[in-house]
């Protein structure tokens, strides 16, 4: 198999593994959102649920990391197929997006716990 073929197989594998993990995270997140939105979207409401809540922090930190695996792989594929980017360019875009998701996502989690 070519090195590009191996890279594609790895991307396929990682996207499916992250998808299985994300399915569980997303179900919990949807339930939390539907319940939390009842009290309106304010900093006080968010902090009342999250401040000092270590379980919440670990849950959402892992959620962010799973997103950082799953989302860039999908975007790389779309940018290749729909925008006509080269494999190298879409890979670079994916890495940049992964970095943005990790940094902004973990900052957000750190901020609310």
């Amino acid at each position, binding site marked *: 198999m070519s090195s590009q073929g191996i890279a594609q197989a790895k991307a396929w594998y990682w996207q499916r593994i992250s*998808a299985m993990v994300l399915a569980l995270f997303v179900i919990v997140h*949807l339930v939390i959102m539907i319940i939390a939105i009842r009290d309106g979207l304010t*900093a006080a409401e*968010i*902090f009342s649920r999250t401040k000092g809540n270590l379980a919440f922090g670990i849950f959402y930190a892992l959620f*962010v990391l799973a997103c950082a695996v799953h*989302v860039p792989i*999908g975007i790389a594929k779309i940018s290749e197929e729909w925008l006509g980017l080269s494999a190298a360019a879409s890979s670079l875009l994916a890495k940049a997006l992964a970095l943005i998701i990790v940094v902004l996502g973990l900052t957000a989690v750190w901020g609310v716990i």
Partner: protein
Amino acid sequence: MRAAPRRSGRAQSIAYWAFVVHRVSGLVLALFLPIHFLLLSQAIRGEAALDNALALTELPLVKFAEWGLVVLLTLHLVGGIRLILIEFGPWRGQRSGWITASVFVAAGTGFLFLYNMLVTV
């Protein structure tokens, strides 16, 4: 990521639309994610800073977008579970029932989210 199903025949046509919905919902969610995190990361500067950022969510258009994102997230979730079942499970075929289920479950979460959002206004 899966290649697009062929566009011929009714079942394949439904599978093609499921592919389009999965891809477009994934793309929109991916574009939203950095904005979502940027907004919530204002929490690091304190409660007032986060409230300042959250003021954006009072706009009716943003509320509509939040509802749309909940619907898209549910479509992507159930559609994604369908793909995993096809690829890893002992199932064969298009699993059209899961496509129908994704629409109904998304309508359900969308309704619950909208109802809970509006009863607070």
